[in-house]
């Protein structure tokens, strides 16, 4: 059983007691524990179930590479799934539950999946896709849905706060082991500014666990001494609990600081995302131990040898009483020695190498540990925990020589440099046959804006595993980095370090070498995603050669741990199955983040009202106080309607329309884009921007214009007013002001840069109110100050003046078909002007109306709306708007495109009005069917609805739509589909439903 030892544990405070909760069980640990060490101290070997087969899973690692121990953590607004027990620091009141099991961790019904293992082999999902549909609905889908996803999704809004922080350093060192600290010291001595970050709460990395001496000091003293020296320097920043999450172009680094995960009651942000620009980046990210591939290597109690050692040395926790060590390298002997020193039993070290270990082997034997060279594990015995191992020769096919009872297995398949951060931005690797690892190629490092390398791996991350080599490499790499920045490299000397004579690691990708089918089906590569040696071999058999394809086919390395333990073993297995070598197979792409980071940290402060600031019109306060029912339009909130009492939306819209058409309505039109275009070449410029002629617009007049992209498609529309000889004012759609401003700037700056034109976006400088209805003129005359009579201010004219004391610009234009004025006043007077209109309009029962009334009234008049009648594929000709396309102009944006063959095709769908025979409202976006079916067996179509409303004015549904040969088919009845599958008949009619002769607006 796993337990807390009486002594030992350099990180735990044995005087303290920390209470926590696992699956409802009350457990205790110490300050300094991780959740993983505390669970093991409480003999909680079983911590979860695997993804596919729901196999029992125990803790495998002691750090970020852990694949199994993922927890649902916290409750309610503090709930978060997939929290790694090995990187979760224990705190009082911590509450976690294990994942991916039902009804309980101990008795899981899904484990039955294991019985169907044969049917869940590599490519399961892909193979199932070709089965008949009914199988999907009744068998596969329910099964997949039930097993999909690890952990639970939070149901409440995150109660914590998060922030971003921008920082700049000459050098960023990622990793606080001895390589990182030594590199940091070397950089700091050059005078360059340096940030050293460590992902755990403690400095020193593996060296403080592994022991040895540096410059006559213990590794621990060396680390403390280094920290003291670094902390005393002004150009050094030290950060623990901060992970290098990603390295990006041109020296950009993301640091993920877990500020208060370990102390959730403290104030301030929970996580802080550091957005750093660095001149040089040193990745001293260490190495990750590889598991060995033998049957039963996933049974709880089988653990990485380094992790077993970490639990004993750092936390005083024994994973078992009797631990069998199995290895292909010398390092695992350190585990056996550490266990023995802690008074625990190591029945045997199984060394797959025929020649065994160097001096560490001698030490082990001297301590009385049995060492067997050339031996392997044939099979681990046990279910929910290890009960023993069967031993065989590594060279054979698994004939059992002996069985040994044990309750833990410490395995080491060698070490892989943690090259993730080095590789994020394109750093290349070479396979090192001697060291049995992919290591960075220093000649092919990621390059920066000068084409020079800017990411340098150091220490174990660079493939150096011995203490003295790590230190020497850290100093050499740090010197290179400071020189690259133009600093003088300091004269840092390499301290002397103690050395064990180690024998070389040997590649062992399958244990035993000739393991048959039966063993390989129980030999796991990816613990979290349940990928076995047999799956990768099957993929190779089925023709998969690319490692990227095999990864997706088998799901190897696609779980939340992104294959930190499984990738190298997996691609070695693939290489073997393809009968090629490892460098030929290559690695999959390393992508950020190194380990998952919280969604909160990514969002930072950008949530709720800060996520996207809302734009407000000067009259927003009035809308708020008067029942405005808002809808989002661009970054604005516009009143859809103003509801009174218990009115429905539809009732409010009907009231607003009827009263506007009968007497007087007011619309807050401030959101309309207002671009002032000025300069001697403006006429020429606007002639290019609009399809119709704007240069010949007379001062004092308005003209409706269409804008197309160079592709010919409609992008915006609006009324243009000529202000003076060289000034035009272009109104754009509400959402279009910034986009059209940018569009104009692009053409002015990049195509016609010698034209003298200036564009200013004045949208928010003016409040604008549409005064609409038969009494519109009366209310303006009541305010007084300007002659707005029929003859003084004709339709499509504008005038400056004062109205009721307000400085105003009055445009006589109409989007509703009624007598209508749009009046712009300075933004800061907008609310007062609105109030004045309401007061003056009281005698006419003035009716403020919202965007829906606006839409319905324009549709009654057959006016198009950008975004309804247009969708990025519609040209003005489709909308029968040839009248707005100049024939005189040689050129305008879109002209050439509108001459392309499919643009002039008579088969394009064209705009018509649609009138249902039963008076109902056509469903929005519905299609008109045509006889026959297309190549996919779908019904052919001949048109679609673009706008559809209930018209209170007419008392029935009205619609516009694009129909094949539509304008030539007036009076014809066609059928549109409804969501329920039924059809509705509609007659093709003229698109103008109301006041076709325009009598209402010409008064």
């Amino acid at each position, binding site marked *: 059983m796993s337990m807390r030892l009486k002594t030992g544990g350099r990180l735990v405070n044995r005087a303290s007691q920390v209470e926590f909760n696992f699956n409802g069980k009350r457990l205790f640990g110490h300050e300094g524990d991780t959740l993983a060490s505390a669970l093991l101290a409480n003999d909680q070997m079983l911590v979860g179930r695997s993804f596919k087969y729901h196999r029992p899973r125990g803790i495998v690692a002691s750090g970020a590479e852990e694949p199994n121990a993922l927890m649902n953590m916290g409750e309610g607004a503090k709930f978060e799934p997939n929290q790694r027990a090995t990187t979760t620091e224990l705190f009082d009141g911590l509450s976690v539950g294990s994942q991916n099991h039902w009804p309980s961790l101990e008795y899981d019904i899904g484990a039955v999946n294991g019985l169907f293992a044969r049917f869940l082999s590599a490519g399961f999902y892909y193979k199932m896709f070709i089965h008949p549909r009914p199988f999907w609905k009744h068998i596969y889908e329910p099964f997949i849905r039930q097993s999909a996803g690890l952990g639970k999704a939070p149901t409440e809004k995150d109660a914590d706060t998060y922030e971003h922080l921008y920082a700049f350093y000459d050098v960023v060192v990622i990793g606080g082991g001895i390589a990182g600290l030594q590199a940091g010291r070397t950089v700091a001595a050059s005078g360059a500014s340096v940030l050293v970050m460590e992902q755990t709460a403690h400095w020193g990395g593996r060296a403080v666990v592994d022991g040895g001496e540096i410059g006559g000091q213990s590794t621990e003293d060396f680390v403390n001494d280094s920290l003291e020296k670094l902390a005393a320097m002004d150009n050094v920043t030290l950060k623990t609990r901060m992970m290098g999450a990603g390295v990006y172009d041109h020296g950009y680094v993301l640091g993920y600081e877990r500020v208060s995960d370990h102390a959730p009651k403290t104030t301030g942000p929970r996580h802080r995302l550091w957005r750093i620009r660095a001149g040089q980046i040193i990745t001293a990210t260490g190495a990750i131990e590889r598991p060995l591939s033998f049957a039963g290597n996933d049974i709880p109690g089988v653990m990485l040898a380094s992790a077993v050692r970490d639990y004993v040395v750092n936390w005083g926790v024994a994973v078992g009483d009797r631990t069998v060590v199995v290895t292909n390298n010398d390092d695992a002997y350190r585990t056996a020695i550490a266990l023995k020193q802690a008074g625990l039993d190591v029945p045997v070290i199984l060394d797959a190498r025929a020649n065994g270990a160097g001096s560490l082997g001698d030490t082990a034997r001297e301590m009385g540990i049995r060492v067997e060279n050339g031996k392997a594990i044939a099979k681990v015995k046990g279910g929910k925990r290890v009960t023993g191992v069967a031993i065989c020769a590594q060279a054979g096919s698994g004939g059992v020589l002996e069985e040994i009872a044990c309750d833990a297995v410490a395995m080491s398949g060698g070490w892989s440099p943690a090259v993730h951060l080095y590789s994020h931005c394109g750093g290349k690797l070479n396979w090192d046959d001697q060291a049995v690892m992919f290591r960075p190629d220093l000649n092919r490092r990621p390059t920066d804006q000068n084409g020079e390398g800017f990411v340098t791996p150091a220490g174990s991350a660079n493939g150096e595993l011995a203490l003295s080599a790590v230190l020497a490499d850290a100093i050499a790499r740090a010197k290179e980095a400071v020189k690259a920045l133009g600093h003088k490299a300091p004269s840092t000397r390499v301290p002397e370090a103690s050395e064990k004579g180690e024998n070389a690691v040997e590649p062992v990708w399958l244990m035993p070498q000739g393991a048959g089918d039966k063993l390989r089906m129980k030999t796991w590569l990816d613990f979290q995603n349940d990928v076995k040696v047999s799956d990768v071999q099957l993929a190779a058999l089925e023709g998969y050669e690319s490692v990227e394809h095999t990864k997706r086919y088998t799901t190897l390395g696609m779980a939340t741990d992104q294959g930190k333990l499984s990738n190298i073993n997996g691609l070695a297995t693939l290489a073997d199955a393809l009968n090629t070598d490892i460098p030929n197979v290559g690695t999959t792409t390393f992508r950020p983040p190194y380990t998952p980071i919280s969604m909160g940290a990514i969002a930072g402060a950008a949530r709720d009202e800060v996520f996207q600031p809302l734009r407000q019109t000067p009259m927003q306060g009035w809308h708020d106080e008067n029942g405005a029912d808002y809808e989002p339009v661009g970054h604005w909130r516009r009143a859809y309607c103003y509801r009174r009492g218990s009115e429905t939306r539809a009732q409010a819209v009907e009231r607003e329309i009827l009263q506007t058409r009968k007497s007087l309505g007011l619309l807050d039109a401030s959101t309309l884009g207002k671009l002032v275009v000025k300069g001697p070449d403006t006429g020429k410029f606007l002639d290019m921007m609009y399809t119709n002629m704007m240069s010949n617009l007379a001062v004092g007049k308005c003209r409706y214009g269409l804008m197309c992209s160079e592709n010919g498609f409609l992008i915006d529309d609006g009324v243009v007013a000529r202000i003076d000889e060289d000034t035009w004012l272009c109104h754009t759609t509400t959402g279009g002001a910034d986009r059209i401003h940018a569009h104009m*700037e692009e053409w002015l700056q990049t195509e016609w840069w010698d034209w003298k034109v200036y564009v200013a976006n004045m949208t928010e400088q003016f409040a604008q109110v549409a005064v609409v209805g038969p009494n519109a003129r009366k209310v303006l005359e009541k305010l007084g100050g300007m002659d707005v009579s029929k003859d003084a201010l004709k339709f499509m004219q504008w005038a400056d003046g004062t109205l009721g004391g307000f400085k105003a610009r009055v445009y006589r234009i109409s989007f509703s078909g009624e007598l209508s004025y749009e009046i712009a006043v300075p933004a800061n007077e907008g609310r007062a002007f609105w109030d004045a209109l309401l007061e003056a309009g009281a005698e006419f029962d003035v009716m403020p109306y919202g965007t829906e009334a606006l839409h319905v009234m324009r549709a009654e008049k057959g006016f198009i709306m950008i975004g309804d009648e247009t969708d990025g594929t519609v040209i003005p000709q489709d909308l029968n708007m040839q009248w707005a396309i100049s024939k005189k102009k040689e050129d305008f944006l879109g002209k050439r495109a509108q001459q392309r063959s499919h643009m002039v095709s008579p088969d394009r769908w064209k705009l018509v009005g649609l009138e249902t025979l039963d008076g109902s409202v056509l469903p929005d976006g519905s299609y008109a069917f045509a006889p026959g079916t297309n190549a996919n067996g779908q019904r052919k179509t001949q048109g679609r609805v673009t706008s559809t409303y209930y018209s209170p004015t007419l008392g029935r549904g009205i619609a516009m739509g694009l129909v094949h040969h539509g304008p030539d088919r007036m009076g014809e009845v066609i059928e549109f589909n409804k969501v329920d599958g039924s059809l509705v008949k509609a007659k093709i009619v003229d698109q103008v439903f109301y006041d076709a002769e325009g009598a209402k607006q010409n008064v």
Partner: protein
Amino acid sequence: MLLLECPYCGAKCEETELSPGGEAHIKRYGPGSSDQDFEAYLFMRENPKGVHFERWRHVYGCGKWFHAARCTQSLEVFGTYAAQTFEPPQEIKDKISAKRPGWSWRDFS
């Protein structure tokens, strides 16, 4: 997250300050042009692994469009320059030639 210097305001811009505008030095074809030329102008773009010229706008800064000469493979930036030109300044062409022997203007490979 590229760093590009805006040649107008001198700011060393992070990519998030900029908006991309695709390939630079594209000649506009309008009315009267052949279908082939017009199609090429609208849709055909180079996608080189190596030296490339791009349009960028300092949209969250001075608002100006500028051009960048850079290597799409190494991310090396050879220089940025005003958008009001039909081809890159000689100085930038020389710099590219020095770094990429054999390279020549308009020879995408």
